Protein backbone atom coordinates (compact mmCIF):
# COMPACT_ATOMS: atom_id res chain seq x y z
CA UNK A 1 0.00 0.00 0.00
CA UNK A 2 2.76 2.43 0.89
CA UNK A 3 4.49 1.77 -2.42
CA UNK A 4 1.46 2.95 -4.30
CA UNK A 5 1.62 6.43 -2.86
CA UNK A 6 4.82 7.54 -4.64
CA UNK A 7 3.41 6.11 -7.88
CA UNK A 8 0.17 7.96 -7.43
CA UNK A 9 2.02 11.12 -6.59
CA UNK A 10 4.18 10.81 -9.70
CA UNK A 11 1.13 10.16 -11.83
CA UNK A 12 -0.64 13.20 -10.46
CA UNK A 13 2.37 15.42 -11.04
CA UNK A 14 2.70 14.09 -14.57
CA UNK A 15 -0.95 14.82 -15.25
CA UNK A 16 -0.77 18.30 -13.83
CA UNK A 17 2.37 19.14 -15.76
CA UNK A 18 0.92 17.59 -18.89
CA UNK A 19 -2.21 19.71 -18.70
CA UNK A 20 -0.54 22.86 -17.49
CA UNK A 21 2.15 22.90 -20.15
CA UNK A 22 -0.06 23.85 -23.11
CA UNK A 23 -1.65 26.57 -21.03
CA UNK A 24 1.71 28.16 -20.50
CA UNK A 25 2.36 28.21 -24.23
CA UNK A 26 1.35 31.37 -26.09
CA UNK A 27 -2.41 31.85 -26.16
CA UNK A 28 -4.12 30.42 -29.19
CA UNK A 29 -5.59 32.83 -31.70
CA UNK A 30 -9.30 32.67 -32.34
CA UNK A 31 -10.45 32.21 -35.93
CA UNK A 32 -11.57 35.86 -36.01
CA UNK A 33 -8.10 37.02 -35.03
CA UNK A 34 -6.49 34.73 -37.55
CA UNK A 35 -8.57 36.08 -40.42
CA UNK A 36 -8.01 39.66 -39.39
CA UNK A 37 -4.31 38.95 -39.15
CA UNK A 38 -4.23 37.42 -42.61
CA UNK A 39 -6.10 40.36 -44.08
CA UNK A 40 -3.72 42.84 -42.50
CA UNK A 41 -0.57 40.94 -43.42
CA UNK A 42 -1.75 40.47 -46.96
CA UNK A 43 -2.52 44.16 -47.28
CA UNK A 44 0.93 45.06 -45.99
CA UNK A 45 2.69 42.59 -48.24
CA UNK A 46 0.83 43.67 -51.35
CA UNK A 47 0.64 47.42 -50.97
CA UNK A 48 3.30 49.06 -53.06
CA UNK A 49 4.52 45.79 -54.49
CA UNK A 50 1.69 44.92 -56.78
CA UNK A 51 3.47 45.48 -60.06
CA UNK A 52 6.57 43.71 -58.91
CA UNK A 53 4.56 40.74 -57.75
CA UNK A 54 2.57 40.68 -60.94
CA UNK A 55 5.82 40.31 -62.86
CA UNK A 56 7.15 37.64 -60.56
CA UNK A 57 4.36 35.15 -59.86
CA UNK A 58 6.66 32.85 -57.95
CA UNK A 59 7.28 35.60 -55.43
CA UNK A 60 3.57 36.01 -55.07
CA UNK A 61 3.24 32.31 -54.37
CA UNK A 62 5.86 32.70 -51.67
CA UNK A 63 3.85 35.51 -50.11
CA UNK A 64 0.78 33.30 -50.13
CA UNK A 65 2.70 30.44 -48.58
CA UNK A 66 4.02 32.62 -45.83
CA UNK A 67 0.81 34.38 -44.91
CA UNK A 68 -1.96 31.94 -45.70
CA UNK A 69 -0.50 28.46 -45.56
CA UNK A 70 0.16 28.33 -41.80
CA UNK A 71 -3.51 28.89 -41.12
CA UNK A 72 -4.98 26.42 -43.56
CA UNK A 73 -5.23 22.74 -42.86
CA UNK A 74 -4.26 21.72 -46.38
CA UNK A 75 -4.02 18.01 -45.63
CA UNK A 76 -7.46 17.85 -44.06
CA UNK A 77 -8.96 19.93 -46.86
CA UNK A 78 -7.38 17.65 -49.46
CA UNK A 79 -8.80 14.61 -47.74
CA UNK A 80 -12.20 16.23 -47.80
CA UNK A 81 -11.82 16.99 -51.50
CA UNK A 82 -10.88 13.39 -52.22
CA UNK A 83 -14.07 12.35 -50.46
CA UNK A 84 -14.87 8.68 -50.72
CA UNK A 85 -11.77 8.12 -52.86
CA UNK A 86 -9.58 8.92 -49.89
CA UNK A 87 -9.97 5.31 -48.80
CA UNK A 88 -8.74 4.00 -52.13
CA UNK A 89 -5.71 6.25 -52.19
CA UNK A 90 -2.45 5.12 -50.65
CA UNK A 91 -0.94 7.43 -48.02
CA UNK A 92 1.71 8.38 -50.56
CA UNK A 93 -0.96 9.29 -53.10
CA UNK A 94 -2.77 11.38 -50.54
CA UNK A 95 0.34 13.40 -49.82
CA UNK A 96 1.04 13.88 -53.52
CA UNK A 97 -2.54 14.88 -54.17
CA UNK A 98 -2.47 17.35 -51.31
CA UNK A 99 0.68 19.02 -52.60
CA UNK A 100 -0.32 19.02 -56.25
CA UNK A 101 -3.80 20.30 -55.48
CA UNK A 102 -2.51 23.08 -53.25
CA UNK A 103 0.03 24.11 -55.86
CA UNK A 104 -2.51 24.15 -58.63
CA UNK A 105 -4.98 26.14 -56.60
CA UNK A 106 -2.50 28.77 -55.48
CA UNK A 107 -1.19 29.22 -59.01
CA UNK A 108 -4.73 29.47 -60.31
CA UNK A 109 -5.88 32.12 -57.87
CA UNK A 110 -2.66 33.94 -57.07
CA UNK A 111 -3.32 36.66 -59.55
CA UNK A 112 -6.75 37.30 -58.13
CA UNK A 113 -5.17 38.00 -54.80
CA UNK A 114 -3.27 40.91 -56.31
CA UNK A 115 -6.53 42.80 -56.25
CA UNK A 116 -6.80 42.40 -52.50
CA UNK A 117 -6.55 45.88 -51.10
CA UNK A 118 -6.17 46.69 -47.46
CA UNK A 119 -9.31 48.19 -46.04
CA UNK A 120 -11.49 46.53 -48.61
CA UNK A 121 -12.00 43.43 -46.60
CA UNK A 122 -14.22 43.68 -43.58
CA UNK A 123 -14.15 40.88 -41.06
CA UNK A 124 -17.63 40.65 -39.57
CA UNK A 125 -17.99 40.11 -35.88
CA UNK A 126 -19.71 37.05 -34.60
CA UNK A 127 -21.09 36.15 -31.24
CA UNK A 128 -21.67 32.76 -29.79
CA UNK A 129 -19.34 30.00 -28.79
CA UNK A 130 -16.77 28.53 -31.07
CA UNK A 131 -17.45 25.00 -32.20
CA UNK A 132 -14.23 23.00 -32.30
CA UNK A 133 -15.39 21.04 -35.29
CA UNK A 134 -16.78 23.85 -37.35
CA UNK A 135 -16.62 27.58 -36.78
CA UNK A 136 -17.28 30.14 -39.47
CA UNK A 137 -15.70 33.59 -39.85
CA UNK A 138 -17.59 35.85 -42.21
CA UNK A 139 -15.94 38.58 -44.24
CA UNK A 140 -17.11 41.00 -46.87
CA UNK A 141 -14.88 41.97 -49.75
CA UNK A 142 -15.56 45.29 -51.47
CA UNK A 143 -14.87 45.01 -55.17
CA UNK A 144 -13.65 47.84 -57.34
CA UNK A 145 -17.04 48.37 -58.87
CA UNK A 146 -18.68 48.87 -55.50
CA UNK A 147 -20.25 45.44 -55.22
CA UNK A 148 -19.49 43.32 -52.24
CA UNK A 149 -18.65 39.65 -52.10
CA UNK A 150 -19.25 37.49 -49.08
CA UNK A 151 -16.36 35.23 -48.23
CA UNK A 152 -16.60 32.88 -45.27
CA UNK A 153 -13.84 30.79 -43.78
CA UNK A 154 -14.63 27.57 -41.99
CA UNK A 155 -12.27 26.71 -39.15
CA UNK A 156 -11.66 23.69 -37.02
CA UNK A 157 -9.50 23.11 -34.01
CA UNK A 158 -6.68 20.72 -34.79
CA UNK A 159 -5.29 18.22 -32.35
CA UNK A 160 -2.50 20.63 -31.47
CA UNK A 161 -5.04 23.20 -30.29
CA UNK A 162 -4.61 25.60 -33.22
CA UNK A 163 -7.47 26.83 -35.29
CA UNK A 164 -7.01 26.13 -38.96
CA UNK A 165 -9.28 26.79 -41.91
CA UNK A 166 -10.38 23.94 -44.12
CA UNK A 167 -13.04 25.43 -46.35
CA UNK A 168 -13.74 28.71 -48.08
CA UNK A 169 -17.32 29.65 -48.89
CA UNK A 170 -17.58 32.38 -51.49
CA UNK A 171 -21.06 33.78 -52.15
CA UNK A 172 -22.64 30.74 -50.59
CA UNK A 173 -20.62 28.19 -52.54
CA UNK A 174 -18.50 25.85 -50.49
CA UNK A 175 -15.36 25.32 -52.51
CA UNK A 176 -14.32 22.11 -50.87
CA UNK A 177 -17.73 20.58 -51.54
CA UNK A 178 -17.62 21.84 -55.09
CA UNK A 179 -14.13 20.51 -55.75
CA UNK A 180 -15.11 17.24 -54.17
CA UNK A 181 -17.78 16.80 -56.85
CA UNK A 182 -15.41 17.70 -59.66
CA UNK A 183 -12.60 15.52 -58.37
CA UNK A 184 -15.05 12.67 -57.89
CA UNK A 185 -16.12 12.90 -61.53
CA UNK A 186 -12.50 13.07 -62.66
CA UNK A 187 -11.37 10.13 -60.60
CA UNK A 188 -14.16 8.03 -62.01
CA UNK A 189 -12.91 8.89 -65.46
CA UNK A 190 -9.15 8.69 -65.11
CA UNK A 191 -8.40 7.29 -61.69
CA UNK A 192 -6.56 8.83 -58.77
CA UNK A 193 -3.12 8.40 -60.27
CA UNK A 194 -4.19 10.03 -63.51
CA UNK A 195 -5.66 12.99 -61.68
CA UNK A 196 -2.59 13.46 -59.50
CA UNK A 197 -0.30 13.34 -62.51
CA UNK A 198 -2.42 15.87 -64.30
CA UNK A 199 -2.35 18.24 -61.34
CA UNK A 200 1.37 17.81 -60.97
CA UNK A 201 2.19 18.46 -64.59
CA UNK A 202 -0.42 20.96 -65.61
CA UNK A 203 -0.97 22.88 -62.41
CA UNK A 204 -3.38 25.76 -62.79
CA UNK A 205 -4.58 24.57 -66.20
CA UNK A 206 -5.78 21.34 -64.65
CA UNK A 207 -8.02 23.27 -62.28
CA UNK A 208 -9.64 25.05 -65.20
CA UNK A 209 -10.16 21.77 -67.01
CA UNK A 210 -11.78 20.27 -63.94
CA UNK A 211 -14.22 23.13 -63.94
CA UNK A 212 -14.99 22.88 -67.64
CA UNK A 213 -15.43 19.17 -67.63
CA UNK A 214 -17.81 19.35 -64.75
CA UNK A 215 -20.02 21.69 -66.75
CA UNK A 216 -20.63 19.10 -69.39
CA UNK A 217 -23.82 17.24 -68.65
CA UNK A 218 -22.11 13.90 -69.24
CA UNK A 219 -21.77 12.55 -65.74
CA UNK A 220 -25.20 12.99 -64.19
Amino acid at each position, binding site marked *: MTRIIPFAFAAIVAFVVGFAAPASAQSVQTPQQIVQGIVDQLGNALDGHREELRQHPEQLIKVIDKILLPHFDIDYAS*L*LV*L*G*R*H*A*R*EATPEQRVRFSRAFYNSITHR*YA*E*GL*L*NYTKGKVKVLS*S*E*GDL*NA*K*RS*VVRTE*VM*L*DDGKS*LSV*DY*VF*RKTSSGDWKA*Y*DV*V*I*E*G*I*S*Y*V*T*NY*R*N*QVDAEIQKEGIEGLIKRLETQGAAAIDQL*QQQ*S*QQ*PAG*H
Partner: protein
Amino acid sequence: MAPGFRRDDDGNGNMNARPSYAIGTGLFILLGFAALAYLATQTTSVANVHQGNSYFLKARFSNIGQLKERAPVKIAGVRVGSVQSIQLERGKMDALVTLAINDKYNDIPDDTAAAIFTSGLLGDQYVGLQPGGSPDSLKNGDELVLTQSAMQLEDLIGKFLVNGGPKSGSSDSTQPPPKTEAKPESKPQSAASGG
Protein backbone atom coordinates in the same frame (compact mmCIF):
# COMPACT_ATOMS: atom_id res chain seq x y z
CA MET B 1 -97.65 10.25 -60.19
CA ALA B 2 -97.97 8.95 -63.74
CA PRO B 3 -99.19 5.42 -64.08
CA GLY B 4 -96.56 2.82 -64.79
CA PHE B 5 -93.99 4.13 -62.33
CA ARG B 6 -93.01 1.86 -59.57
CA ARG B 7 -93.55 3.49 -56.29
CA ASP B 8 -90.64 3.66 -53.90
CA ASP B 9 -92.76 4.85 -51.08
CA ASP B 10 -95.44 3.05 -49.23
CA GLY B 11 -98.18 5.37 -50.47
CA ASN B 12 -97.94 7.79 -47.54
CA GLY B 13 -94.67 9.43 -48.56
CA ASN B 14 -92.45 7.30 -46.42
CA MET B 15 -89.56 5.97 -48.40
CA ASN B 16 -89.13 2.25 -48.36
CA ALA B 17 -85.91 1.03 -46.96
CA ARG B 18 -84.50 -0.69 -50.05
CA PRO B 19 -81.63 -2.45 -48.37
CA SER B 20 -79.63 -3.29 -51.47
CA TYR B 21 -79.49 0.33 -52.64
CA ALA B 22 -78.55 1.71 -49.26
CA ILE B 23 -75.86 -0.86 -48.65
CA GLY B 24 -74.49 -0.51 -52.14
CA THR B 25 -74.27 3.26 -51.91
CA GLY B 26 -72.78 3.14 -48.49
CA LEU B 27 -70.16 0.66 -49.55
CA PHE B 28 -69.28 2.72 -52.58
CA ILE B 29 -68.78 5.82 -50.48
CA LEU B 30 -66.69 3.94 -47.96
CA LEU B 31 -64.58 2.54 -50.79
CA GLY B 32 -64.15 6.04 -52.14
CA PHE B 33 -62.91 7.36 -48.82
CA ALA B 34 -60.66 4.39 -48.35
CA ALA B 35 -59.10 4.98 -51.75
CA LEU B 36 -58.60 8.66 -50.91
CA ALA B 37 -57.03 7.80 -47.60
CA TYR B 38 -54.70 5.32 -49.28
CA LEU B 39 -53.65 7.88 -51.85
CA ALA B 40 -53.07 10.52 -49.24
CA THR B 41 -50.96 8.45 -46.89
CA GLN B 42 -49.26 5.63 -48.73
CA THR B 43 -48.12 7.38 -51.85
CA THR B 44 -46.72 10.57 -50.36
CA SER B 45 -43.98 11.28 -47.89
CA VAL B 46 -46.36 11.14 -44.94
CA ALA B 47 -46.02 7.37 -45.12
CA ASN B 48 -42.28 7.59 -44.81
CA VAL B 49 -42.54 9.25 -41.44
CA HIS B 50 -42.92 5.79 -40.01
CA GLN B 51 -39.39 4.83 -40.83
CA GLY B 52 -38.30 3.15 -37.67
CA ASN B 53 -35.78 4.33 -35.13
CA SER B 54 -33.51 7.19 -36.06
CA TYR B 55 -30.50 9.02 -34.77
CA PHE B 56 -29.96 12.74 -35.17
CA LEU B 57 -27.32 14.77 -36.96
CA LYS B 58 -26.87 18.53 -37.09
CA ALA B 59 -25.96 20.72 -40.03
CA ARG B 60 -25.59 24.48 -40.18
CA PHE B 61 -26.49 26.34 -43.34
CA SER B 62 -26.28 30.02 -44.06
CA ASN B 63 -29.38 29.71 -46.21
CA ILE B 64 -31.84 26.84 -46.30
CA GLY B 65 -33.88 28.19 -49.18
CA GLN B 66 -37.23 26.41 -49.31
CA LEU B 67 -36.28 23.46 -47.14
CA LYS B 68 -39.10 22.36 -44.88
CA GLU B 69 -39.44 20.01 -41.96
CA ARG B 70 -40.03 16.39 -42.96
CA ALA B 71 -38.21 17.01 -46.23
CA PRO B 72 -36.28 13.92 -47.29
CA VAL B 73 -32.60 13.37 -46.64
CA LYS B 74 -30.97 11.37 -49.40
CA ILE B 75 -27.69 9.69 -50.09
CA ALA B 76 -27.06 8.92 -53.77
CA GLY B 77 -30.72 9.67 -54.37
CA VAL B 78 -31.93 7.07 -51.87
CA ARG B 79 -33.97 8.33 -48.96
CA VAL B 80 -32.23 7.67 -45.65
CA GLY B 81 -34.09 9.99 -43.34
CA SER B 82 -35.86 13.29 -43.03
CA VAL B 83 -35.41 16.79 -41.71
CA GLN B 84 -36.44 16.74 -38.08
CA SER B 85 -36.36 20.43 -37.28
CA ILE B 86 -35.08 23.77 -38.53
CA GLN B 87 -34.07 26.51 -36.11
CA LEU B 88 -32.42 29.86 -36.34
CA GLU B 89 -29.28 30.16 -34.28
CA ARG B 90 -29.20 33.47 -32.54
CA GLY B 91 -25.85 35.18 -32.53
CA LYS B 92 -24.51 33.30 -35.51
CA MET B 93 -27.64 33.83 -37.60
CA ASP B 94 -27.21 30.40 -39.13
CA ALA B 95 -29.94 27.87 -39.75
CA LEU B 96 -29.45 24.82 -37.57
CA VAL B 97 -31.04 21.85 -39.28
CA THR B 98 -31.51 18.61 -37.37
CA LEU B 99 -31.63 15.51 -39.56
CA ALA B 100 -33.23 12.26 -38.45
CA ILE B 101 -31.40 9.39 -40.09
CA ASN B 102 -32.70 5.85 -40.04
CA ASP B 103 -30.69 3.67 -37.65
CA LYS B 104 -29.83 1.15 -40.31
CA TYR B 105 -27.65 3.76 -42.06
CA ASN B 106 -25.10 3.97 -39.32
CA ASP B 107 -21.93 4.04 -41.38
CA ILE B 108 -22.02 7.53 -42.85
CA PRO B 109 -18.42 8.84 -42.87
CA ASP B 110 -17.83 11.82 -40.63
CA ASP B 111 -16.50 14.00 -43.45
CA THR B 112 -19.77 13.77 -45.34
CA ALA B 113 -21.06 16.96 -46.92
CA ALA B 114 -24.65 18.14 -46.71
CA ALA B 115 -26.08 20.17 -49.56
CA ILE B 116 -29.56 21.44 -50.29
CA PHE B 117 -30.86 20.39 -53.67
CA THR B 118 -34.10 20.86 -55.54
CA SER B 119 -36.10 17.89 -56.82
CA GLY B 120 -36.31 18.25 -60.54
CA LEU B 121 -36.42 21.80 -61.79
CA LEU B 122 -38.80 23.57 -59.45
CA GLY B 123 -39.78 20.92 -56.94
CA ASP B 124 -39.39 20.63 -53.22
CA GLN B 125 -35.98 20.98 -51.71
CA TYR B 126 -34.22 18.17 -49.92
CA VAL B 127 -30.92 17.55 -48.21
CA GLY B 128 -28.43 15.49 -50.16
CA LEU B 129 -25.56 13.90 -48.26
CA GLN B 130 -22.35 13.35 -50.19
CA PRO B 131 -20.23 10.77 -48.38
CA GLY B 132 -16.58 11.36 -47.77
CA GLY B 133 -13.89 8.79 -47.22
CA SER B 134 -13.25 9.00 -43.50
CA PRO B 135 -13.06 5.67 -41.71
CA ASP B 136 -15.02 7.08 -38.76
CA SER B 137 -18.80 7.23 -38.88
CA LEU B 138 -21.17 9.91 -37.73
CA LYS B 139 -22.79 9.27 -34.37
CA ASN B 140 -25.94 10.60 -32.78
CA GLY B 141 -25.57 14.33 -32.15
CA ASP B 142 -22.60 14.86 -34.48
CA GLU B 143 -22.41 17.87 -36.72
CA LEU B 144 -21.62 17.75 -40.42
CA VAL B 145 -18.41 19.60 -41.19
CA LEU B 146 -19.13 20.48 -44.80
CA THR B 147 -22.33 22.18 -45.83
CA GLN B 148 -23.56 23.84 -48.97
CA SER B 149 -26.49 26.23 -48.74
CA ALA B 150 -29.37 26.34 -51.15
CA MET B 151 -28.92 28.07 -54.46
CA GLN B 152 -31.15 31.11 -54.68
CA LEU B 153 -32.72 31.63 -58.06
CA GLU B 154 -32.50 35.40 -57.76
CA ASP B 155 -28.78 35.30 -56.98
CA LEU B 156 -28.10 33.07 -59.94
CA ILE B 157 -30.08 35.22 -62.33
CA GLY B 158 -28.40 38.29 -60.94
CA LYS B 159 -24.95 36.83 -61.46
CA PHE B 160 -25.87 35.60 -64.89
CA LEU B 161 -27.00 39.04 -65.97
CA VAL B 162 -24.12 40.88 -64.34
CA ASN B 163 -21.43 38.67 -65.74
CA GLY B 164 -22.91 38.51 -69.17
CA GLY B 165 -23.27 34.77 -69.46
CA PRO B 166 -21.53 31.57 -68.32
CA LYS B 167 -18.46 31.43 -70.51
CA SER B 168 -17.63 35.08 -70.43
CA GLY B 169 -13.96 34.17 -70.04
CA SER B 170 -13.62 37.35 -68.07
CA SER B 171 -10.21 38.51 -67.12
CA ASP B 172 -11.57 39.85 -63.90
CA SER B 173 -9.72 37.66 -61.49
CA THR B 174 -11.00 39.29 -58.36
CA GLN B 175 -13.67 36.71 -58.04
CA PRO B 176 -12.83 33.16 -58.82
CA PRO B 177 -13.94 33.73 -62.39
CA PRO B 178 -16.62 32.20 -64.48
CA LYS B 179 -16.74 29.67 -61.70
CA THR B 180 -19.12 31.76 -59.73
CA GLU B 181 -22.03 31.56 -62.12
CA ALA B 182 -20.82 28.40 -63.74
CA LYS B 183 -20.80 26.67 -60.39
CA PRO B 184 -24.52 25.91 -60.51
CA GLU B 185 -23.91 23.83 -63.60
CA SER B 186 -21.93 21.46 -61.52
CA LYS B 187 -24.93 20.92 -59.35
CA PRO B 188 -27.27 18.97 -61.56
CA GLN B 189 -30.44 19.55 -59.65
CA SER B 190 -30.04 23.23 -58.89
CA ALA B 191 -32.73 25.65 -59.84
CA ALA B 192 -30.33 27.23 -62.34
CA SER B 193 -31.45 24.89 -65.05
CA GLY B 194 -34.96 26.10 -64.56
CA GLY B 195 -33.94 29.73 -64.31
